[in-house]
């Protein structure tokens, strides 16, 4: 049986109601924000997470994730980001952060990766993960070097330690981004339950 109408106040009011394509109605417009892939680290850990074969059909990319590494000598670690498997000194990165008691900023130029700050480690209390949102605008625009912008941080629930960080990076290459690799900077493995999702945002 076809549903021919949905009335306000009915049990169907929480459904999304789209107009049909009959003359006079606004055409259905799909969301511009789509999941491309998601990786969740299993019990064995993972040294690198790579999104490959990224389609060039979106305008922007966004990575959203939580992460914890097996670093054992400090409570915080950094997520390295490399593009298209390039590990040459073709990157720069910058940060500004607050840790609850002060602020700081820094820069690294002509380096071989982009740092994204900060995530938790095995040195921190159990089950504490850092969070990251990484935006890459115009990732398929071959007239531009690629700029990343990251909002991230972690709180360690000990009353005096944690970070909120705005970071950025630049890859001095105009190629379309087709792969993104993420790896711990000090540890050698992401812990179980680390998760990164890659999303595409349409521009047309």
């Amino acid at each position, binding site marked *: 049986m076809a549903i021919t109408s949905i009335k306000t106040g009915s049990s169907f009011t929480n459904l*999304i109601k789209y107009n049909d394509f009959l003359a006079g109605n606004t055409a259905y*417009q799909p*969301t*511009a*924000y789509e999941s491309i892939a998601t990786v969740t680290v299993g019990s064995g850990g993972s040294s690198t997470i790579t999104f490959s074969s990224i389609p060039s059909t979106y*305008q*922007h990319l966004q990575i959203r994730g939580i992460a914890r590494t097996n670093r054992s000598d400090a409570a915080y670690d950094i997520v390295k980001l490399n593009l298209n498997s390039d590990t040459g000194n073709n990157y*720069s990165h*910058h*940060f*500004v*952060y*607050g840790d609850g008691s002060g*602020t*700081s*900023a*820094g*820069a690294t*130029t*002509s380096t071989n990766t982009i740092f994204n700050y900060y995530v938790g480690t095995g040195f921190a209390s159990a089950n504490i993960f850092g969070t990251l949102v990484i*935006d890459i*605008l*115009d990732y398929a*625009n071959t*007239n*531009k*070097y690629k*700029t*990343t*912008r990251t*909002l991230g941080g972690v709180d360690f629930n000990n009353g005096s330690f944690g970070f909120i960080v*705005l*970071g*950025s*990076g*630049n890859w*001095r290459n*105009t190629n379309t981004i087709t792969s993104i690799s993420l790896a711990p900077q000090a540890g050698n493995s992401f812990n179980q339950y680390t998760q990164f999702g890659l999303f595409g*945002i*349409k*521009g*047309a």
Partner: protein
Amino acid sequence: MATYKLISSVTVGSGGAANIEFTSIPATYTDLVVKLSARNSITGDVYEDLGIYFNSSTSNLTWRMLYGTGAAASTTSGSTRYSAFVPTSSATASTFGSVEFYIPNYAGSTNKSYSVDSTTENNATTVLQNLSAGLWSNTAAITTVTLNPETGNFVQYTTAYLYGIS
């Protein structure tokens, strides 16, 4: 489930552009997002102030900002439209800044708050990264959003995308 829809986009052509303007924004969404990948035409400093204003009004705009220069961090406030930054032609070639403006409840009847996260980038120490909280003390629904650098123009290949969230 929230939906994220493209309302309009602008790509700057070879002549550059003094500003980017989105007009006739429908009131049918709950929030607006502007994603801007931009570079400025001036030389000298490696970054330039970037402004945002609404409904062609440059009055009653205030903001608070946390920022980093690549070497130091600080905080400031202002009563202008310039609450973000873009790299200039003195920054590393072909390098464009990345800016996101988030404007919640843009069609509501309260004063309009917005947030910014912005970075310029440069293969050198000096950049300008900032997080800003801005306020337009006006209760009108936002129907126009304008972006403009304080001096100079947006260069070719600068892009701006306006999305509606509902």
